[in-house]
């Protein structure tokens, strides 16, 4: 694998936390140039006013994964056309970290933000496999008994297992599927409500992804793939 390809594959691991999709799929990587051991990446977002905390997370994650490649020497990541481009790009260039970049607007770190969205991603992935079972005739009241081993080994299940791992849940076959972010199952009486709540989370994430893809395509005159 060439270095260019190697760098792109590394960026596959950088996820938009809000949309739960890799920035490479979302077309957020505007350009990637490798010269010897130096990499220059330009990122772009759907609007100038996308939330700067998410923008910073993605840009700093991109810099981290590229810096972690054994062959890279100098890594430059720049965010284009954002209201905080100057602030974020200066912070990234200086490796100033989150607090050093945003100074008085930052309190501690972005870990709580990351955790919130990893939990939402798990909830949505769980809803997808459970709703599929309900559509197949499974009673909602019985969903509490479904274990990971009961799920077909397909993309939806693999996605759920990855989301579980990301929030520190184990993935053994005997474990229940319908759980909260700490891995605890819900009382049977709550299952219909919890499934509805999980559905609204899934719809929200998917809807935001539609909107963001569409806006990015409009903004940069790209082909919008309607999924």
């Amino acid at each position, binding site marked *: 694998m060439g270095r260019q390809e190697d760098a792109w594959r590394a960026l596959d691991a950088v996820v938009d936390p*809000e949309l739960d999709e890799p920035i490479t799929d979302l077309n957020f990587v505007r350009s990637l140039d490798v010269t010897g051991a130096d990499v220059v990446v330009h990122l772009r977002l*759907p*609007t*100038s*006013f*996308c*939330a*700067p*905390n998410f923008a*910073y997370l993605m840009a700093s994650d991109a810099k981290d994964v590229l810096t972690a490649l054994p062959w890279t020497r100098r890594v430059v990541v720049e965010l284009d056309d954002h*209201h905080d481009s100057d602030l974020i790009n200066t912070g990234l260039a200086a490796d100033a970290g*989150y607090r050093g970049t*945003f100074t*008085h*607007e*930052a*309190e*501690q*770190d*972005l870990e*709580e*933000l990351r955790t*919130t*969205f990893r939990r*939402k991603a798990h909830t949505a992935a769980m809803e997808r496999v459970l709703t599929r079972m309900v559509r197949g005739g499974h009673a909602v009241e019985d969903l509490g008994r479904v274990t990971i081993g009961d799920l077909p080994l397909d993309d939806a299940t693999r996605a759920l297992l990855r989301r579980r791992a990301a929030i520190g849940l184990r993935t053994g076959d005997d474990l229940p599927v319908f759980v909260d972010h700490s891995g605890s199952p819900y009382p049977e009486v709550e299952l219909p409500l919890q499934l*509805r*709540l999980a*559905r*609204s*989370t899934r*719809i*929200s994430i*998917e*809807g*935001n992804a*539609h*909107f963001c893809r*569409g*806006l990015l*395509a*409009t*903004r940069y005159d790209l082909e919008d793939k*309607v999924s």
Partner: protein
Amino acid sequence: MYSKDGENYFIVDAHVALWDARPENQRNIHGKQFIDCFYDYHRNLSPESEVWPYQEYLYQGGDRLMHDLFEVGYVDHAIFQPAYLGEFYNNGFGQTEEAFRLTEANPDKLTYNHFWDPRFGETGLKQLREDAKRFNLKGCKLYTAEWHGESRGWKLDDPWSYRYLETAQELGIKNIHIHKGPTIRPLDRDAFDVADVDKVASDFTEMNFVVEHCGLPRLEDFCWIATQEPNVHAGLAVAIPFMHTRPKYFAQIIGELLYWLDEDRIQFSSDYALWTPRWLVEMFVDFQIPEDMTEYAPLTTAQKKKILGLNAAAMYDIPVPAELQLPREEPQAVAVA
């Protein structure tokens, strides 16, 4: 009024603006970025036939607004929901004087809502009292992502925000429209979080809190809050044009809102001039939940009538002709004498 298949619909456009984003009013690059972002929303979600040239989009003026809403847009009454954006535009984004003059000239067609920003402290409170009197305010629009000096956003449950809400309540301003933009401080947490709406809605139970864009991009958090708080409502601005580009997604949004909120707490709005009401009204009346989405019940004509106008008319005491009201025991809105 819009008529289709023997049914007549009273239309209230609950969120419109008269803005000026022309270069001479742009204070800095952010003024351009802001209107460009709006224009991308407009281009991305409008049918091709409804897309305006960029130059026209920068500023519409009162005549064009009256034409687009009332002459060709089926709207019976519209409510101004201005955003100030004083850090981006010299004379602000929403044009207060022009919109208010238009309202005074057309009191049966227009309602003017104003705005406040709790970071102006005592001075702003005094201004709010004067504004309430001058504009005869029934409602206000709050944009929590507004920049102000070093601060790039505020929360509804900030101490000063409580003082403004208390004052508004005392002044009879009942309807608070909230636009959750990406609030910045502190950056550590989700900027679109709607938890502050929950707090103020339970502390100010006599007021209505209309969350614009129905809480998008946090529909799930919004729905949960609205289930707990009977005075929280959903504004369909930004959500409703998805009927055209992503009908299945829109079906899910409206399906979720009807499930969590019920049909009395959802309001139509075009978000003019982001979009124009004509095609939205026509398309919404024709809209139906796709048959394969069995988790949602089909939309009824009565639900569409409420969403398109009767709900907002009831909230703002806008007179609805008797023949356009729904036949029911509970009063929907004040009938024309």
